[in-house]
Structure formats: structure tokens, C-alpha cells
């Protein structure tokens, strides 16, 4: 089961992804991320409630990296549980994404980047 919510405050879109992202549910993450990327230049992805992610979910993030770079979109992921972060680390994907611990730090990075 996957839960996704989004809200936008002061020009920053926050995507909250919780539950489990697998080959069955990753389509919802894909749709939400695609929508956020088409409407916003500053996005924070809140993974505090994420319990599980498989390659299908990792693949969703990977597939938008090029767009993020091409369109100078700022996207910061935060709040991953250790077991989830380890999955990103296995293949080194943590090096390709902007990942931080807390929401405050994610917002800091987003604002800093906009200077």
C-alpha cells in the first residue's frame, strides 16, 4: 500500500510518500512525481513514512534525473529510514539524488540553491 500526498507552500511543492513502493504501486509514485515536476521548479520529497522501496520505485527517481537536470529543477529527498536509505546505497543511487535528513535541512538546500 502506498500513500502519496502533495502540498505547495510558498512556491515549494512537498510530496509525501509513505507505505510501500513496489512493482505494483510504483505507478502512483511515477504519476505524482511526473505531475510535480511539470508544475514546479522546487520540490521536496518527504519519505518519512516510507517503509519499503524496490527497484521499481528507485527506477522512478532515476527516470526523472535527466529532466531535473535539463530543466534546472531543485529536488531534495529527505526523511528516509535507514533501511530505505540502504536500498538507495546498494547501487550508489544515493550519490545521484540530493538526499538529506530533515525537512528543515531540505528546505534550506532548496532556498540556498535558489540564490
Amino acid at each position: 500500500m502506498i500513500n502519496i500526498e502533495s502540498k505547495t507552500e510558498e512556491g515549494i511543492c512537498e510530496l509525501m510518500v509513505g507505505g510501500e513502493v513496489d512493482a505494483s504501486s510504483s505507478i502512483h509514485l511515477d504519476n505524482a512525481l511526473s505531475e510535480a515536476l511539470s508544475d514546479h521548479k522546487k520540490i521536496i520529497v518527504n519519505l518519512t513514512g516510507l517503509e519499503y522501496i524496490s527497484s521499481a520505485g528507485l527506477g522512478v527517481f532515476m527516470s526523472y534525473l535527466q529532466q531535473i537536470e535539463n530543466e534546472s529543477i531543485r529536488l531534495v529527498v529527505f526523511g528516509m529510514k535507514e533501511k530505505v536509505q540502504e536500498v538507495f546505497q546498494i547501487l550508489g543511487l544515493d550519490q545521484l539524488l540530493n538526499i538529506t535528513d530533515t525537512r528543515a535541512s531540505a528546505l534550506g538546500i532548496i532556498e540556498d540553491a535558489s540564490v
Partner: protein
Amino acid sequence: MHQFKTSCKREKLREIREFISEVLKDIGFSENEAHKVILAVDEVCANLIIHSNKCNPTECLEIYVEDNKQGVVTFDIVDYGIGFNYNNYKEPNLEEIVRKRKKGGLGIMLVKNIMDSVEFSQENNKNVCRLMKKFHVKK
């Protein structure tokens, strides 16, 4: 020997993970250790359900888990679809995945990283993926 049989639907992946989680807990895996092993089994099952069996719910998937009591657990994942030719498998390049905006190709890479051994074999119309994982036996 623990076994689980299910149909080739993506929605079954969650039940598969729950089954593997219970078995690993019984065997004595720590939660952290179990998380990655569950992921590896999920990846193989997702591939078999989606690619080998085209999500056909009338096809079945069988999982057998054996603990040899000496720190090695073996997973046999059996299906009857189009066999995966592991010999032809070429590890994708991460940069290429990013450049081509591909969503797939990472699953088997994860499995190979997590498990100590990964083998695919075919016998008549039956395909078996055997995964092995060494673990620390709790005294």
C-alpha cells in the same frame, strides 16, 4: 522447508514479502538483514510475474525456503513462464539508465548485490531461480 504458492499478479508481491518476512524472522534474521533479503526475493518475483508470465493470473509462482541450519538459507522460486536467460544478462550501466530515462533494469543488479549466489535453471517447462544467502546464526 517453508513454501508459498501464489498467482502471477503484481498485487501478490506484498503477500510474498510478508511470507518471506515471517520465515526469516523464524530463522533468526535481524530486521535489517531481513529487509534486503526480502527485497531480493521481491525483485526476482516481480521480474517473473511481469516479464516471464506477463501478469497472467492463471499462472502460478512457487517459493520454497530452506534453512540448512548452518547459516545458509536457500530460496527456490519456481515458475512456468518464459525462462529468464541469465547467461545473456548484461548488467546495465547506471549512466545509461539515467540518460535514456529508463525505469527498469535495476532489479537484478540489486539481487546480485544482496545475495551470495544467484542461479537460474530450466527443466522442461519449469524455471527455477535459486538464491542463496549466508547469515549470522544466533547462538
